[in-house]
């Protein structure tokens, strides 16, 4: 069977290329990866008027065929027919921003020289009109020598005409188009400016919307205040809106567990399904509402054009730690969950900047740490008031967040001067025009990202929870024996205990560290389980967890445990997503290694300082 004709959609960044791709293919898209690199391959199908299907591939945005990032390298290699795992395109759709022809025609001219059958989509024609620009598409067609179709991708305008032109092009016998010798970039740029000037019929000077908005949003004083307000709303939403769906999911998981318990005979298989699969996967999908809301905001910030403004405002501060302004949103997102944060680093062009951001993202205090912090603080930190409404417990909580942020900035600083030295294209970004993204595009992006999360995190989580369950359940304890002692996990915990004893950790903690790898907050239930199942005397069993902790842990141990959780890479999902985003095991292993060392040192330092102070 001959493969479908392949049509590549190419264009400069901010030309509205992905919106056009979405408009052409609808929801029938496949998201994969190009082999050997962490560049996503978006493909979809388009059925032409005569019923012939063609495959469309959305190439990463590029300014020219001289790549400045791995994404741009893929674009070049596909267009030149050099990309492994991709056939040479049969035709090209080049998307250009109608109000930025001076710049976008340079890449278009370079692509036309390649000699593929080509159509130009003169996109965002509405925004050009809004800016007082009137263009002559016919003139442009004459100058470029290829068909030019006016489109407004986000409003799905001009899409039928584009499909028709594509149909004509693929039906016509290939002739008259020959590859020309590539021209120099500067010459292409000057030619682009000439053509752009020739295509402008009329230009009425207007106060541009983008300029008016930027005067406020990039204002030296109001800009940062508005950014802080937007971030506040975002976090409020992530935590407040997710509460109800989170409890539904928790109830649903509990109900499912109860049903399975009732329907199955007691024994190992039931334990595997209830305690292993259902509980383990349940622990992870309870984070889904938060992740959905977070992705929704990220997509909205990206789609409107505000994301790069946020990067602009924060660049100077991030630069001090060796990061770029672009790391701001991914790191901020990591306060909710490092997984979407790490996935959001794809907007960082420079590979070393991006890798540094990925490696420090787990240090931002994610929401899974909160149950652990809350429990330990409630148990050990007295609820005394320091001054006004400021209590000691709140100060400790703030201190933990502060330690995470400081740790992340210091780690970035060290990494940028050590293993990730050099590189760093600095901070060079285009500030695109503001526009309101179509809801369809946002929803489509949301679905794709959630699928990636569930597929990656979900499969790895299911695997690891089953392994962890097996370790904790085999062999089964006989009468008078404690399950947590006799199991393989119990023996591993003994090994862990030998290592963590010097930093003040007791046997309970050693037992909780292993299951907490599935998700940090599992540490709480793991400790609770140890007390409820193992304790022989009813008094201990009936005491609340907080009371049990106070009885069994000295204060320095509790403080060391908190310090440990600030730094420790206690989360399989994060490791899995790091593997995916760095395309190998090298960096996730490095990350796990340095974070464990950091956690160990921090916990040890805390413990011994507390002991010496006589706490």
């Amino acid at each position, binding site marked *: 069977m001959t493969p479908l004709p392949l049509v590549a959609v190419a264009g400069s960044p901010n030309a509205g290329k992905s919106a056009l791709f979405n408009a052409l293919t609808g929801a029938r898209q496949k998201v994969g990866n190009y082999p050997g690199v962490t560049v996503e391959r978006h493909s979809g199908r388009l059925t032409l008027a005569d019923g012939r299907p063609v495959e469309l591939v959305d190439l990463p945005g590029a300014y020219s065929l001289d790549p400045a990032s791995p994404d741009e390298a893929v674009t070049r290699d596909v267009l030149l027919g050099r990309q492994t795992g991709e056939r040479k395109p049969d035709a090209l759709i080049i998307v250009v921003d109608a109000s930025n022809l001076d710049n976008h025609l340079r890449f278009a001219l370079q692509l036309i020289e390649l000699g593929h059958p080509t159509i130009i989509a003169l996109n965002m024609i509405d925004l050009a009109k809004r800016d007082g620009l009137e263009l002559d598409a016919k003139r442009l067609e004459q100058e470029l020598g290829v068909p030019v179709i006016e489109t407004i991708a986000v409003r799905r305008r001009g899409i039928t005409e584009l499909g028709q032109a594509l149909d004509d092009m693929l039906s016509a016998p290939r002739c008259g188009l020959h590859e020309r010798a590539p021209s120099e970039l500067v010459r292409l740029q000057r030619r682009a400016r000439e053509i752009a000037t020739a295509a402008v019929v009329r230009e009425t000077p207007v106060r541009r919307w983008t300029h008016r908005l930027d005067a406020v949003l990039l204002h030296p004083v109001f800009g940062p205040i508005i950014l802080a307000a937007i971030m506040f709303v975002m976090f409020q939403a992530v935590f407040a809106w997710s509460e109800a769906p989170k409890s539904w999911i928790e109830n649903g998981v509990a109900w499912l567990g109860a049903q399975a318990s009732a329907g199955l005979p007691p024994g190992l298989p039931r334990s595997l399904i209830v305690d292993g699969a259902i509980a383990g996967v349940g622990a992870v999908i309870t984070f889904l509402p938060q992740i959905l809301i977070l992705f929704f905001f990220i997509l909205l910030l990206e789609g409107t054009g505000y994301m790069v403004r946020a990067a*602009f405002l924060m660049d100077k501060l991030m630069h001090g730690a060796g990061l770029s302004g672009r790391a701001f949103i991914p790191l901020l997102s990591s306060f909710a969950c490092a997984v979407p944060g790490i996935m959001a680093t794809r907007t960082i062009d420079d590979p070393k900047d991006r890798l540094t951001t990925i490696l420090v993202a787990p240090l931002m205090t994610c929401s899974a740490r909160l149950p652990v912090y809350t429990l330990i603080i409630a148990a050990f930190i007295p609820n005394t008031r320091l001054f006004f409404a400021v209590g000691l417990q709140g100060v400790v909580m703030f201190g933990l967040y502060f330690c995470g942020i400081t740790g992340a900035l210091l780690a970035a600083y060290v990494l940028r001067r050590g293993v990730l030295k050099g590189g760093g294209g600095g*901070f*060079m970004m285009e500030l695109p025009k503001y526009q309101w993204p179509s809801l369809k595009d946002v929803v489509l992006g949301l679905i794709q990202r959630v699928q990636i999360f569930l597929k990656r995190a979900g499969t790895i989580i299911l695997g690891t929870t089953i392994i962890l369950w097996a370790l904790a359940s085999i062999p089964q304890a006989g009468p008078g024996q404690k399950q947590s002692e006799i199991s393989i996990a119990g023996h591993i915990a003994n090994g862990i205990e030998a290592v963590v004893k010097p930093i003040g950790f007791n046997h309970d903690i050693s037992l909780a560290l292993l299951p907490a790898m599935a998700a940090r907050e599992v540490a709480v239930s793991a400790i609770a389980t140890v007390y409820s199942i193992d304790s022989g005397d009813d008094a201990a069993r009936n005491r609340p967890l907080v009371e049990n902790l106070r009885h069994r842990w000295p204060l320095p141990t509790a403080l060391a445990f908190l310090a440990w959780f600030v730094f420790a890479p206690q989360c399989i999902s994060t490791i899995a997503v790091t593997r995916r985003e760095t395309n190998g095991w090298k960096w996730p292993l490095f990350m796990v290694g340095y974070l464990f060392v950091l956690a160990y040192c921090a916990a040890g330092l805390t413990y011994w300082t507390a002991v010496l102070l006589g706490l």
Partner: protein
Amino acid sequence: MNAPFVPIAATGLDQLLVGTKARVLSIAWDSLDEAEANRLRHFGFDEGVAVEPLHLGPFGRDPIAIRVGRMIVAIRRKHARAVQVVPLQQ
């Protein structure tokens, strides 16, 4: 009395006040590394192109948002220094 003719001196793009339109006189490509130089070319920086600083970053007035032709780009102050411009007379 007519004001004497004063030739306007070229200055670095980083020295230009916000809202001052100017034209690029020359770019010290050698002072930039290859990736940075390429990016500036991609943004359309070239001799004779119209530029105008629009906004400054809130901390240390860095980076700078600059209109280049029809697009707005943000670059750091140290990179803007490589671009020599001649302010246009208002």
